[in-house]
């Protein structure tokens, strides 16, 4: 029987596979490429526990292979093996050693656990309120008087204290490269802190099944240096304290007219509008349309033509706009910027 | 086990005289262990939701001590009378079994009547299953218990009727015994209901 050779061949195949896969995690997304202290602490725990586990696994496999090779029944082998009842020393050994290994793991588990549940007041951390919706994210900076959606903007190297809740069903807020997730529960507020130590864009995901388009409930985290962040806040504050600016170009003005009529009920721009849909004040500055589509005029148009096609079951209705209206809206919306 | 006397003279503790009987009693106890978890889960839910009145009536506004006390007294007494039925069973006295069980059933019906009256009254005060989480939890827990009482009543009546024809045998004896166990268990659950739901409700949600 060639079973065991095959088995080993297979195992080495996995080894290769593992290398290939680990090499490829995307910096912006992978939990294996931590970009902040929370993710780093978690990564350390992951490394420690996997090291212990691999150690135990190797021991098990060594005994396993030895036994299978050494004690296979040989052709012509006679007699009956000794019927061993047990062995107290051995049994104690494999009770105590795993227990000790668990203790090694338990200590950092406890310390990290409590460190991650620290809560920081506004003197020490930027406060951000997160509200999850089917299937988009709303972000508010209550102390700064700024609200945005889809793209979370954060300063680099500063603790951020999140207050999270949901407007409808349960979602979970997850930025793998910055740290683990936490659920957003309707009717309750959860807290979590994170910190980004690198500027750039990170990918965020919804990690709790929340309906048809759970898979597409992505968001982006834009981490900038403190100065750029302050500037962004000032820009947002400046715009959001006023009524929407009147568009200048004729196309955009036409678009704004449609927008005020059909869209403002759900979407806020500057200091005006509803909260049923994402705040669009800085729509033109965003990385993606609706969290998933690349931000191009074509994609904005695609979204406006048939939002349900891009994201099944989302709460923006198909408004049956004709091409001209869409064109005007796209032009208007490209002016919604604070940069 | 079956001697030639078997039909004429019942063995001691006839409910456990056969393997079937023993199996039934053991199985029923295990079932009661499961019921413990069942009611425990309902209690846990109730405790978590008892202050969530959503603008509806609170437990302090609703509950009425004399009513609960009366219901408790009735149910406790019925548990007592059902134990008397078991004692009669051990004396192999079918007539006394029937007498005690009849009293038990009547008391059970009385208890149910009180509970139905209570529920109707609450609904009139605007306390419904859909009013609040408290309302849902209250009716589910107390209603589940009431459902058990109702089932017990029907069960015992059925046993009584069929025993008229069959008499007391090693087949019917375990059934009487189980019905009595069941009835006691319902009473034990009620002890926690009057404590956790009613008495703690009257104290209010300040403590605990």
């Amino acid at each position, binding site marked *: *029987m060639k079973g065991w050779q095959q088995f080993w061949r*297979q195992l080495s195949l*996995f080894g290769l*596979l593992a290398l*290939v*896969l680990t090499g*490829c995690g995307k910096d912006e997304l*992978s939990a294996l490429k931590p970009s902040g202290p929370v993710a780093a602490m978690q990564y350390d725990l992951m490394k420690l*526990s996997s090291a212990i586990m691999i150690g*135990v696994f190797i021991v*098990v496999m060594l005994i396993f292979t030895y*036994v299978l090779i050494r004690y296979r*029944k040989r052709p012509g082998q006679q007699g009956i*093996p*000794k019927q*061993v009842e047990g*062995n107290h020393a051995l*049994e104690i050994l494999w009770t105590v050693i795993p227990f000790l290994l*668990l203790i090694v*793991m*338990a200590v950092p*588990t*406890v310390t990290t*656990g409590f460190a991650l549940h620290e809560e920081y007041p506004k003197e020490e951390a930027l406060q951000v309120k997160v509200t999850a919706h089917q299937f988009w994210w709303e972000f508010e900076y209550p102390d700064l008087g700024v609200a945005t959606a889809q793209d979370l903007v954060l300063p680099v190297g500063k603790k951020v204290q999140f207050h999270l809740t949901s407007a*409808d*069903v*349960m979602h979970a807020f997850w930025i793998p490269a910055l740290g*683990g*997730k936490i659920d957003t*529960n309707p009717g309750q507020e959860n807290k979590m802190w994170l910190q980004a130590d690198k500027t750039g864009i990170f990918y965020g*995901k919804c*990690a*709790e*099944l929340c*309906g*048809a388009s*759970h898979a597409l409930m*992505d968001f982006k985290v834009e981490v900038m240096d403190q100065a750029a962040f302050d500037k962004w806040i000032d820009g947002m504050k400046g715009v959001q304290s006023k009524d929407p600016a009147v568009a200048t170009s004729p196309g955009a003005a036409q678009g704004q007219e449609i927008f005020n009529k059909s869209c403002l009920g759900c979407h806020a721009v500057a200091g005006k509008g509803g909260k049923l849909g994402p705040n669009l004040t800085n729509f033109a500055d965003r990385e993606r349309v609706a969290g998933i589509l690349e931000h191009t005029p074509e994609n904005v148009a695609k979204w406006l033509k048939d939002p349900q096609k891009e994201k*099944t*079951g989302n709460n923006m209705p198909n408004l049956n706009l004709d091409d001209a209206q869409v064109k005007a809206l796209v032009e208007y919306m490209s002016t919604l910027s604070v940069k | *086990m079956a001697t030639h006397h078997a*039909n004429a003279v019942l063995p001691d503790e006839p409910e456990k005289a056969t*393997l079937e009987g*023993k*199996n039934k009693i053991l199985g029923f106890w295990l079932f009661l*262990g499961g019921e413990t*978890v069942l009611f425990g*889960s309902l209690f846990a839910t109730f405790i978590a939701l008892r202050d969530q*009145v959503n603008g509806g009536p609170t437990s302090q506004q609703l509950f009425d001590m004399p009513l609960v006390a009366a219901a408790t007294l009735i149910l406790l007494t019925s548990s007592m009378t059902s134990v008397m039925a078991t004692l009669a069973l051990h004396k192999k006295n079918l007539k006394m079994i029937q007498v005690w069980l009849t009293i038990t059933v009547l008391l059970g019906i009385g208890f149910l009547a009180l509970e139905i009256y209570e529920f109707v009254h609450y609904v009139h005060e605007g306390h419904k*299953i859909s*009013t609040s*989480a408290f*309302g*849902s939890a209250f009716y*589910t827990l107390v209603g589940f218990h009431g459902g058990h009482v109702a089932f017990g009543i029907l069960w015992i009546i*059925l046993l009584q009727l*069929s025993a008229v024809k069959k008499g007391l*045998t*090693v087949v019917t004896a375990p*059934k009487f015994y189980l019905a009595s166990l069941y009835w006691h268990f319902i009473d034990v659950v009620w002890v926690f209901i009057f404590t956790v739901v009613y008495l703690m409700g009257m104290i209010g949600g300040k403590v605990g």
Partner: protein
Amino acid sequence: MSAHASHAPAPKRSGLWDWLTTVDHKKIAILYLIAGGIFFLAGGFEALLIRLQLMYPESQVVGAGLFNELITMHGTTMIFLAVMPVIFALMNAVVPLQIGARDVAFPFVNALGFWLFFFGGLLLNTSWFLGGAPDAGWTSYTTLALNQYSGRGVDFYVLGLQIAGLGTLIGGINFLVTIINMRAPGMTFMRMPMFTWASFVTSGLILFAFPAITVGLVLLMFDRLFGGNFFNPDAGGNVIIWEHLFWIFGHPEVYILILPAFGIISEVVSTFSKKRLFGYSSMVFATALIGFLGFMVWAHHMFTTGLGAIANTLFGLATMLIAVPTGIKIFNWLLTMWGGQITFPTANLWAVGFIPTFTIGGMTGVMLAVPPADYQYHDSYFVVAHFHYVIVGGLVSGLFAGLYYWWPKMFGKMLNEKLGKWNFWTFFIGFHLTFFPQHFLGLMGMPRRVYTFLKGQDLDVGNFISTIGVFGMTIGTILFLVNVVVSAKGKRAVADPWDGRTLEWTIPSPPPEYNFAQTPLVRGLDAFWIEKMAGNKGMTPAEPLGDIHMPSPSFLPFLMSVGLFIAGYGFMYHNYVVVVIGLLVTFGCMFARSVKDDPGYHIHEDEIEEKGVKA
């Protein structure tokens, strides 16, 4: 035993009617196996569609809505309707034989348990044709599972699982009583075969875990159908309660699944090493301890719910502890093989393959038990990889081992070894190919339950490999079916094809309906082996040959379950006439059963001897 038992001959039954009315544990085992097998194919087919959809990024094999229905039904079907019944099949087929009993304690209840499970599962699956399957995940978290956010499918989930769960619960009680009261003389607890022990603990877990989900489902039903507010935050409800109730049941459930597999592995490894199980008493202790600890750790599925550092840490540490008794088992198996003469028929291949695979799954389990790290793993493909390693690589392997091992006893036919080996290797390789990459997908940021993933996130390769692997498992499964068909025409099985150690191998394959012509006298652990070593040809009987009393077949279990099945639809569509009709059928049958005692029938002494049993 009953004084009123009639001496009428065995009633004549034939064909379908026999199967619909049987109360014989061996036939019920076959019913469980067939129904569970069909549901396994359905769940596997759903898995196949899931993987096809995820083969490439942004593909559209199935839409977003359908995908959610598929994962929900895949998880629910596999757990409740596929592997649980197959476990019950093996327990039914083997436990009474291993303890030297003629049947289970409550044959009628046994049949009822099967039919309840069957009709519950049927009800759940009819949702596909009646407006859509449930789509809120097998965990059915609220508020997504409430009316406002999901369709009628969840009603099917609630009622289907309620009915099926009832069947499982009474099945569990039945096995507890059977094992406690029906053991043959001399079969003390510490002489029980490991599989019986595992069945015992599993049944205990069923007894205490299922009531929690019963309550959870009742609450969900009230919210969905009768305006309740348990989970509606706007009226003071709380969504966390569902999570707790679900996992208070759900975590013990995974040990309900795995313990019987542990039992099977213990039997198979010991038989094919020709050695007694190493450390039997510590195995028993470990089984019980796993069962006990299993109730104390449910919140490890809720680390990201926001319970806080204290709760998370306590539950995390408690969870890790389970590694210790499980490790005891792994090492005991290894040492059972140590010094033996190991042979590798298919049954043992599965058992031996189980050990490293399950160990990997257990390892990732312990990693998940570290709460801060779990904030990264949770609801990602890492978790999917973990539980398929323990469930498919562990439990399903164990079930295959058990099926190859006990098939001769159940059906009187040997499964083909050559096909069996192909079955094993294709499934085994396909399995690792499917689920090993998923660990990394999870760590690389892929959440679970996503119907698609976008391009440019480096998730393509892993998903592709993962999908390829499923074909291996599909081929493996189909080979098993082929094997079943081929073996039906294959060679007859002898009473003791594997040189077995326990009582089931002392009687013919398949056993006569009364199992043991004479109840055997048990003189130690591995009762049959002891007799073999003492040079005896069989067991010493513990009683003289005599008439055997058997319970009568009954159609009532079937009818009672149909009644609940009908009432279930009534509840869903708020049609109370239908509810009343259904419940009347059920209670009417209960009434009939209670009023009319079953006299049973006797198999006469002469008939037993005719079948070739020495007096």
